[in-house]
């Protein structure tokens, strides 16, 4: 790939949800503060060393005058800047972490295992079937271990890619069968570990249809860097059509 084309990719990717847009604002804010401090501190360091470089013979140490007023000012100022930044970002955190998914959100289960992703949809009956690791058979497509005796599992859809509708809330329930994995969609600015023994919910609302890569973001073994799939955000009607086709195929 030509280098100039690459340079365009050296930053945050497109933001496809409201949360991601708010995220970028907070990121930029923090970046501006960091850049100002960086330039100020580094140039002050160089400038002071240059300005007070020794030209004569070094004498014995002189007593430095102390200033508690200065200490007080810069302690307070940094506290205000740092905690202020945090407070500004707190709302965005609360927005995604403290609120439950709205009623009617599309419910999808996410399963991680060494080294593949699986996604499960409830099917027309709206109920997820029972699972048990006894029934797990990756070769036969039963990565979740759906219990064949449970009728509510008959119509469950299991997919290796994540399909979601745009403009509609989606609630994912994350779980792992073996070790810790982490679900990361850069364009959503979200990441959540999949912890075996836990079922962790997250929710989002993607607005921009497209195909987005999902890397595993928690070291899970030798195939960690190959644990790849995609999230396909589809317009709602295309999404409904996709689900129907799956249902008919089963």
């Amino acid at each position, binding site marked *: 790939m030509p280098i100039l084309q690459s340079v365009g990719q050296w930053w945050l990717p497109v933001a496809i949800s409201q949360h991601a847009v708010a995220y970028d604002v907070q990121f930029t804010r923090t970046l501006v503060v960091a850049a100002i401090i960086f330039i100020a501190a580094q140039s002050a360091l160089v400038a002071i060393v240059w300005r*007070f470089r020794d030209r004569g013979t*070094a004498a014995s140490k002189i007593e*430095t005058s102390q200033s508690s007023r200065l200490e007080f000012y810069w302690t307070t100022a940094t506290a205000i800047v740092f905690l202020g930044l945090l407070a500004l970002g707190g709302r965005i955190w609360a927005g995604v972490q403290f609120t439950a998914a709205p009623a009617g959100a599309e419910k999808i289960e996410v399963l991680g295992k060494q080294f593949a992703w699986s996604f499960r949809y409830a099917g027309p009956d709206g109920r997820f079937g029972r699972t048990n690791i006894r029934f797990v058979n990756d070769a036969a497509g039963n990565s979740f271990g759906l219990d064949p005796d449970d009728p509510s599992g008959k119509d469950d859809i299991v997919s290796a890619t994540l399909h979601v509708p745009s403009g509609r809330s989606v609630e994912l329930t994350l779980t792992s069968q073996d070790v810790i994995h982490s679900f990361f969609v850069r364009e959503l600015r979200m990441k959540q570990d999949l912890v075996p023994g836990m079922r962790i919910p997250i929710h989002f609302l993607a607005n921009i249809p497209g195909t987005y890569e999902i890397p595993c973001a928690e070291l899970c*073994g030798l195939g960690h*860097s190959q644990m790849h799939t995609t999230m396909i955000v589809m317009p709602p009607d295309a999404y409904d059509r996709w689900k129907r086709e799956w249902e008919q195929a089963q």
Partner: protein
Amino acid sequence: MVGLQYFWLSLVAVIVGMALSLLMRFHLVNPDAKIPWFETVWPAGAPGGVMTPELYLSLMTMHGTIMVFFVLSVTPQSAFGNYFLPLQIGARGMAFPILTSVSFWATAVSFVVMMAAFIVPGGAPLSGWTAYPPLSAVGGVSGPGEGMGQTLWLCSIAILCIGSTLGAVNFIATTLDLRGPGVTMMRMPLTCWSWFVTAILSLMGFPVLLAAGVLLLLDRSAGTSFFVPGGLLVSDHVIAREGGSPLLWQYLFWFFGHPEVYIAILPGMGLTSEIISTFSRKTIFGRTAMIFATFSIGFLGLLVWGHHMFTSGMSPYSSIAFAVLSMTIGVPSAVKTFNWLGTLWGGRIRVTTAMLFALGFVSVFVTGGLSGMFLAQPVLDLYFHDTYFVLAHFHLIMGVAALFGIFAAVFYWFPRMFGRMLNETLGKIHFFATLVGVYALFLPMHVVGIAGNPRRYADFTNFEFLTPLLPLHQFMTWAAFLTVSAQIVFFANLILTILRGPEAGTNPWRAETLEWTDGAALRSGNSAARSGVSAGFLAVVAAVSMLFAAFSSAYVVRHGISSDWTTVPFPPTVWAGAAILLLGSVMVELGYMNAAAGLGVLFALAQLWGWQKLIQSGVSMASSPAAAFFYVMSGAFLISVVGGVVALLRHPRAAYFWHYLSGLWIYLLGLFYFWN
């Protein structure tokens, strides 16, 4: 001298760690390269000379482990601290010379055990220096290196924890009890303050890591499930465990892991202050503020471990608390930077190599700290967690800053340690090449992190979004080679100077701290009257308490989430044990030390007998978590009692430790009995 032994050990370790990093950087940009000697060294890890992902991950694990545990926490504290703390406070030596040797040899043995992980079948572990279970807990089924390699890794860490804890006890006792006349706490050099606070952090952290490591070892070998949940299927193997919590490991690990950052960097901060003062010909600006800043950084550092867990599934409400505390650490850190600038201001600055590295320390400390401002915000961390942005952050603030502190220490103290002056021209070449190298390496690393590049990837070939980042990775690999090449200049300087460097005078920098001036006079007047015993025992009590606090919190958490908790019928010997210990306390108070020691032996025998009864009735570690905790905690207690008996026979002051043990046993019985 033990300080020097530590120094040479960490020098070996840093060479290994550096070599591993070059192999990694090379592989990342040449994932398909066939290098014949790879196959010679790692027949299984590099068939045909092509490095496999598992080999890459094991190199990565070992790089992190070696750098953190055998370089960053050894050189600044154990090497320079053991050497210079007594000299700077006018003491004749460390408080407990035997302890000094024991802690060094524990560290050395630990290093050998760690290196052995390379040569066992399956190779070194691949679970990273954080060793998160279940990956690290279920054995070879989860990956190569997770068998014997991971076991050796854990054994090595456990040994290191013991060595580091004993070292910390020694530092604290020396600082509190052995200061020469006139050396008050507030007049101690800031280096001593930072070693002191670092020792407190080690004393708080390492016992907790030890507890976690022991529990993980048992999960691997004794069939317990502290960290392994039920219903696991790892590469088609059903793991027959129930009810453990992977997050419990993360809490315990990071309770140690975050203070570890400050263990690495606080000594560098202290030394930077002293060096800037010496070479500006000015006393330190805001000296008292600096002491308070050091203390508050250490204190806050103990309370922020949760910021490593924002994406772990931990409660989002606790994230807020951890975030506030983490951001607050920025305040004393900024105060330090302001005070360094304040010290420089109006000085007559001599730019020696030692001074350059101290100034470089300030520079990378600021740069590395600023990325912390992003990561401390939970919402921003949702994106940056486990990306190269985090790598850039901690390599700068923990790795490079601490290394600059180490280099400053070497150049500054070399005349005092070896009587010779390191070459300043080579020193300056080394400094500027390293400075350019690390910025060229780590600034672009932020950028790939902003693009979302996950860390701990063995190659970047499976994701479209990683392809455009490859030019940056190539650049970083070149920068890594430049940085490492610059270190050759340093090693050459070191060797040439030791062989035939110019002689140094007694005080070449015209410093004013005691290691250069008239410390000897002070030391001769410092008799054995102050023996370091009382503060030492307090420190031991604190360390043992941290160990049991870690076990207790694991107990409470594991009990709280448990689906498989069954009560254990305790053998009656546990109650008899309480009576024996209390009787021992009475004996101690009456002055019959030998009788108390005898009762200690009786306690040990009774407990062994009780265990035997319990095992005979079919209760093993694997029976239930309650049984596992009973064996682990009473076992750890038994070891403490043995220590207590030895102490009783050697030091009359060990009486207090004996009372402490009695209290601890009653606390444990209460925990088992009422929280069952």
